[in-house]
């Protein structure tokens, strides 16, 4: 039985992954998935409605599904469709998050502690929120740093305000939010255009015209002008012959119709979709979507449809979330192995690590394919890649040493980095388009990948040091054999990190030289990378010179965590320089916590062996510095 445990675990988690690869079932006969796959243009890129829905919901509520009153969950796509076709129903969904007590008291709900609000919960306070938010924006005008200096209340207020705006935009994306039967409305509109145009021309030429015709068309004009201002995704695809990126929104396309006297076919077809959904007619709904797809295919939009389908699949699969969960499982089993030391536990843990790694890799590759880019394009993807790189190294270590350390280290880094990525994803689209300066696949594939691998190896070395200190200080499980192998691992990984950090930093310099004619400019991110290289050099020289031994090396590897996290995240928080593209906010707190925790561990690491649970009653396993008076000779490791 024990022999089969690894296989059983692989089968269980494998089944979990595969189960999400199948297309989701229609809900109440509505083929929602098919709607979720339809492509639109947003953030400068083609993406399915499903991505629009998930990213919007994540940024508003921090969740990718909507919790219903009855405790069930509603998918992001379904919520988006509802908001775009039955705005009044969507207004009852609790999608707005407000946590600050002062904000709750503003909403009059401090007793209830709701945290999540529906639009209807907030309606009575809209003006007040708007007034306060605009006053804040006004006071911040012209001050660049103001956004960073907001109080928690102000942050929460602005978040709520922006969420309300986003919600308003979404509700006015495919039709005006108060439309009853949009298909019917379009029919009327189409009929009225010619007469309205005649009246308009006549009035401009100071001739006699029908007042009613003019007023009707003017009313339509105002109505569509409003939604043209608010519409969120660009849902109307280009017609044959237009540039591929010439998408427009429903409102502006309808305004264009007043000139051209014809309504874009996509609008009529999308209106059929929303109307059928609003009127609860599943058969019509499914037919309308199929009809729209057919139209797109015959209008050379097959690549866009394909992109929508693939990204929908990727969203559905959630490979990084699944990898994160399985990493935790592997990590727990790895720790269990340290307690009972049975080989089959280690094997099971290793097998799980393998499953997590496979799905992590699949996600990474699929994302590269979707974007048509190397793996790292922004802070989010750097977190995914740092985790991946560390797991590769950790797996190799486990293959060599077979003592569970590689598994636990991989599990921890995999979990933490994917968790970081998950939180970074809340700030919006993770596959955003690249600014002109970053738009170069060669340098993204070399400099960025190499430097990120450097980060990954630094963190892995640091984590091994954490394992050393925690096991050595608090438990008796750090045998000299394990201590020595850890020390060798840390040393080896730091050598690796030196190579990658140095080469990566230099490649960055060469990129700068190729693009801007200057190799080095002391930009904060450049300096950050240089700090890692310098730190690696210090560690290696200190060790060669005998200035540090085992515990000293561990303390230095721990400090490497601080240096690397500074270079990776801290620099971006300064908000200056060419590289400050990945600014985020809440991360500052976490970074501080992380740095403090590492400093504490360093403090433990340099305590004399007699305080260590594993080293008590033993001879010293290596003083932190060499005896004085003798010039240390460089010794090769």
């Amino acid at each position, binding site marked *: 039985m024990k022999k089969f445990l690894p296989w059983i675990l692989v089968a269980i988690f494998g089944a979990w992954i595969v189960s999400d690869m199948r297309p989701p079932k229609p809900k109440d006969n509505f083929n929602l998935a098919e709607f979720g796959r339809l492509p639109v243009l947003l953030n400068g890129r083609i993406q399915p409605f499903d991505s629009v829905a998930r990213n919007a919901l994540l940024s508003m509520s921090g969740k990718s599904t909507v919790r219903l009153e009855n405790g069930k969950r509603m998918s992001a796509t379904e919520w988006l469709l509802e908001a775009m076709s039955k705005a009044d129903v969507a207004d009852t969904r609790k999608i707005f998050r407000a946590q600050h007590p002062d904000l709750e008291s503003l909403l009059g709900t401090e007793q209830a502690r709701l945290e999540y609000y529906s639009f209807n919960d907030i309606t009575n306070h809209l003006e007040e929120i708007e007034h306060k938010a605009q006053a804040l924006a006004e006071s911040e005008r012209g001050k660049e740093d103001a956004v960073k200096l907001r109080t928690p209340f102000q942050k929460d207020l602005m978040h709520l305000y922006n969420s309300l705006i986003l919600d308003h935009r979404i509700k006015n994306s495919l039709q005006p939010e108060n439309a009853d039967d949009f298909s019917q409305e379009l029919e009327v509109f189409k009929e009225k255009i010619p007469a309205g145009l005649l009246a308009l021309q006549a009035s401009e030429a100071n001739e006699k015209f029908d007042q009613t015709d003019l007023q009707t068309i003017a009313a339509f004009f105002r109505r569509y002008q409003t939604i043209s201002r608010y519409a969120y995704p660009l849902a109307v695809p280009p017609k044959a012959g237009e540039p591929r990126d010439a998408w427009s929104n429903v409102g502006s396309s309808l305004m264009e119709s007043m000139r051209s006297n014809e309504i874009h076919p996509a609008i009529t077809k999308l209106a059929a979709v929303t109307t059928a959904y609003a009127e609860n007619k599943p058969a019509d709904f499914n037919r309308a979507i199929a009809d729209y797809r057919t139209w797109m295919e015959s209008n050379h939009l097959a690549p866009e449809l394909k992109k929508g389908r693939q990204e929908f699949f990727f969203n559905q699969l959630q490979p990084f979330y699944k990898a994160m969960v399985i990493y935790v499982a592997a990590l727990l089993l790895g720790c269990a192995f340290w307690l009972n030391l049975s080989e089959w536990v280690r094997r099971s843990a290793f097998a799980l690590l393998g499953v997590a790694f496979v799905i992590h890799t699949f996600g990474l590759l699929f994302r590269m394919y979707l974007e048509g880019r190397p793996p790292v394009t922004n802070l989010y993807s750097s977190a995914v890649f740092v985790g991946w790189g560390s797991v590769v190294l950790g797996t190799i270590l486990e293959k060599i040493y077979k003592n569970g350390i590689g598994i636990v280290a991989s599990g921890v880094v995999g979990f933490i980095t994917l968790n970081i990525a998950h939180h970074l994803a809340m700030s919006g689209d993770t596959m955003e388009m690249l*600014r002109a300066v970053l738009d170069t696949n060669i340098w993204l594939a070399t400099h960025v990948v190499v430097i990120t691998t450097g980060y990954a190896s630094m963190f892995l070395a640091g984590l091994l040091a954490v394992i050393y200190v925690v096991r050595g200080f608090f438990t008796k499980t750090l*045998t000299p054999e394990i201590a020595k192998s850890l020390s060798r691992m840390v040393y080896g990984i730091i050598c690796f990190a030196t190579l990658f950090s140095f080469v990566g930093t230099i490649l960055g310099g060469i990129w700068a030289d190729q693009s801007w004619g200057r190799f080095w400019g002391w930009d904060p991110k450049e300096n950050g990378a240089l700090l890692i290289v310098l730190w690696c050099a210090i560690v290696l020289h200190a060790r060669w010179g005998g200035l540090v031994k085992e515990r000293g090396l561990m303390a230095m590897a721990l400090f490497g965590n601080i240096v690397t996290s500074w270079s990776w995240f801290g620099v971006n928080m300064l908000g200056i320089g060419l590289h400050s593209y990945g600014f985020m906010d809440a991360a500052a707190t976490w970074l501080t916590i992380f740095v403090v925790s590492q400093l504490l561990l360093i403090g433990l690491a340099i305590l004399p062996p007699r305080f260590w649970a594993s080293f008590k009653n033993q001879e010293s396993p290596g003083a932190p510095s060499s005896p004085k008076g003798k010039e240390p000779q460089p010794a090769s490791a």
Partner: protein
Amino acid sequence: MIDRVFRFFSSLRLTVVLLACALLLVFVGTLAQVKFGLYEVQAEFFRNVFVWWHPKGANWKIPILPGGWLLGGMLLLNLVAAHLKRFQFTKKKIGIFTIHAGLILLLLGQFFTEVFQVESNIRFEEGQTRNYSEDSRHNELAIIDVSNPDHDQVYSIPETLLAKGGEIRDAKLPFTIRVKNYFQNSEPAGPMSGAGNKIKASDGIGKRLQFAEAPVVATMDNENKPAALLEIASDKGAIGEWTVSTWLTKYPWSAILGEQMGSMFGTALSEPQSFQYDGHTYRLALRPIRYYKPYTITLLDFRHDNYRGTDIPNNFSSKVHLSDPKRGEDRDVLIRMNEPLRYAGETFFQAGFDENNDKVTILQVVRNPAAITPYLACSLVALGLLIQFLMHLVTFGRRQKNKPAPQKNSPKRKTVAVAAAKGAL
């Protein structure tokens, strides 16, 4: 004694201490950029022997950190000394040796770059042609003899000479220039407005427009706008007295001044100031240093596009025409983000645009005679690191192979612990 000095300079401890200082310098130098801006930090931290602390108002200063020059120099000495001491050309050391040779080259190359690199820019509108670029930070007093219709004769006096004050004489100039007053930073002022030190000239625009001394600034988005009051005189006596300032010549300050005072002064603000002497017409201006080139560049088209429906730029590009009759170059070039033009030892890259005028491009021009060194240096270091790393890996692999196979359950802890603790390192 010499032995001890040599031992000090070749010690590994010194390496570690220097590297640690470098770490600190780079870290503090990054933080300082938030307050002081990139250029100031470059000059104060990295292109300096020491980082000084001068308290406001005091006329003394104390060093608080070793600067880039000192650390770079010491590291170089340390490296060379260490290699002299321990240099043995063995197979085992070849990696380490290559790494350090590369580092020496890198340090030297960066030193030459810091000293000899010149950064300037060209800011021009579609249709305009330039045969010079302008220094981004350094100014010159230009005296231009425009009497010859074929070409102008330019005499250039660096701003640093003006800052010293006193008289400026040059054999090539038939007159002397006396610096009567010089402000490192200034603000335009009327006769009534502006407190404190002000300059007023008896000729040129300075008769009507005065400049008041302003506090020196040092951030990236704000720069000093110097002004000086100059008296020009020959052996026979005074020729005249003029005010010069980059307020009158350098974008965007000249544009701002024009906006504010244009209605009062009209074209007098943008017209060059000039005077007659000995049958020649001279112009004078305090302006960004100009680097003239034996060729011309014309801006044909500037594009600045965003991704549809976003504010994310996806393309900046300047289409220029390069014309160099001497070398027979006559072609159109597209300069884009990440695709600069390299010509005659200089690199022209797309650096910016004007928010108010979409026909204006800003090209950065860099001349760096040591541009090749980082490439060589880095290849050496990377090669060395690779050799070293692979050697470790091979040794490590052998050691693992020779080790007895791991036992199913790890051996009893207590007994082995002591034995291995003795052997640890």
